[in-house]
């Protein structure tokens, strides 16, 4: 069972499953997502503050707003290509990023040495690199662009929501899922393998949402580095079209996450990341590290 959502609004095609209802009552939404799993893996306590207690964050990391607005800029370029119209100019797109950064309703928390001006400069470098890269040009027909869809990937799990950066059909009929990432540095092969679970989950959602289309046979991460000289690199994972369902490793990861949430297991995982956690002020372990007193430093 699957449903497509648009602009965050769900269009249910079937009555909600018991697991979807359980998810809604626990985390306020009738689905789980890769970002929830990542958040839990990073720190279960942060997950609890964010999704269960729904605590107001003390601030929003500038990298989060920057990443979201960069995605919007990349999507505007892709949309123009698919529609066969002129791409927006780099300056227009930088203006969009700048507006997002300046209109954040929560206080922005900058990294060391960062400012609004430095982020605008970074946006200009990254958008220029992306627009100039042949990897930003895709041929075919758009299916999803900055949209979400949900599917039931396992009877013991709530539906899984995938937030697609881009899903398109190549002229040869193959379906491609592309996720755009901004990164401090280039991705290694190890990083690619670490990240494959997200795209495998997305593939299963696409397979169910688009039963009339061939299952996606190419999964891509388009990585744009935040370095002084921004570099665009495309990392591809080929998957046989006939492959069906999630492999046991990915399914096990989702099941482990969900059973921990249902069991109410939210231990704090103190690390250097507590310093940029917007809930650290509410967390005894995190507060200590955020104030510079903690020993945990596994960076």
């Amino acid at each position, binding site marked *: 069972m699957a449903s497509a959502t648009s602009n965050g609004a769900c269009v249910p095609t079937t009555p909600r499953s*018991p697991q979807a209802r*359980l998810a809604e009552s*626990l985390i306020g939404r009738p689905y789980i997502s890769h970002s929830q799993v990542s958040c839990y893996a990073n720190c279960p306590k942060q997950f609890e503050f964010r999704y269960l207690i729904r605590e107001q964050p003390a601030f929003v990391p500038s990298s989060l707003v920057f990443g979201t607005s960069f995605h919007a800029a990349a999507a505007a370029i892709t*949309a123009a290509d698919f*529609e*066969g119209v002129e791409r927006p100019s780099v300056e227009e797109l930088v203006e969009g990023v700048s507006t997002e950064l300046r209109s954040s309703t929560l206080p922005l928390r900058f990294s060391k040495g960062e400012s609004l001006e430095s982020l605008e400069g970074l946006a200009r470098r990254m958008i220029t690199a992306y627009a100039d890269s042949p990897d930003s040009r895709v041929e075919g027909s758009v299916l999803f662009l900055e949209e979400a869809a949900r599917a039931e990937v396992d009877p013991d799990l709530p539906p899984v929501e995938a937030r697609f950066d881009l899903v398109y059909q190549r002229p040869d009929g193959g379906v491609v899922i592309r996720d755009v990432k901004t990164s401090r540095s280039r991705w290694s092969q190890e990083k690619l393998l670490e990240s494959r679970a997200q795209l495998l989950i997305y593939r299963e959602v696409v397979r169910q*949402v688009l039963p*009339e*289309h061939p299952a996606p046979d190419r999964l891509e991460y388009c990585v744009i580095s935040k370095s002084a000289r921004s570099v665009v690199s495309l990392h591809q994972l080929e998957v046989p079209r006939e492959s069906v369902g999630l492999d046991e490793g990915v399914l096990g990861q989702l099941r482990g996450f969900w059973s921990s949430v249902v069991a109410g297991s939210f231990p704090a995982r103190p690390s250097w990341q507590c310093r940029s956690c917007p809930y650290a002020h509410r967390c005894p372990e995190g507060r200590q590290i955020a104030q510079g007193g903690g020993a945990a430093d596994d960076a």
Partner: protein
Amino acid sequence: MPMTLTLSLSKKLTENFNSTALGVTIGAEVEHSVLADPAALQSRIDRLFAECDLAIERKLAAMSGGAAPMSLVGAAEAHTKATTPGVPVAASQLLGYASGASNGNGQAKLSHSRGRPATESQLRALRSIARRLGIDLQQEAYHEFAVASPEDLSITAASQLIDALKERAEAAAARGRTR
């Protein structure tokens, strides 16, 4: 002193003038640290209610042969009471009662779509290409796929229409270049 949180949840399923009601009561010990934190306590209560809800949903689904209920009327109450340390907390208790029998006349009020509807990005692309070509997209959708509006197109139909209109746009551009 340890506290026990006792929650009850009951639900009534109404369909075709028949009703089925189920209730569940669950008790759980609560640590003092949770009681001292209103947000954590609320979170624990939410989780217990969710467990009750899931148990009832499963029971209702089993009773109706696996079909999901059409409508649910829920009522819930929660209260805390003191317990003596060491005394086991009552296990979940499932109280079920049913009235009426299915008359078989019920029809699920679900719409049966002909496929997933076109995505927003597909509709944006269609509108943009149609604008460039100077054609009426609604008429085009009706002519090609017999749907009242572009929003009624399926994902597959929208893909086909995008391809067709793009071909037309490219042909028009090529004609423009040769003139």
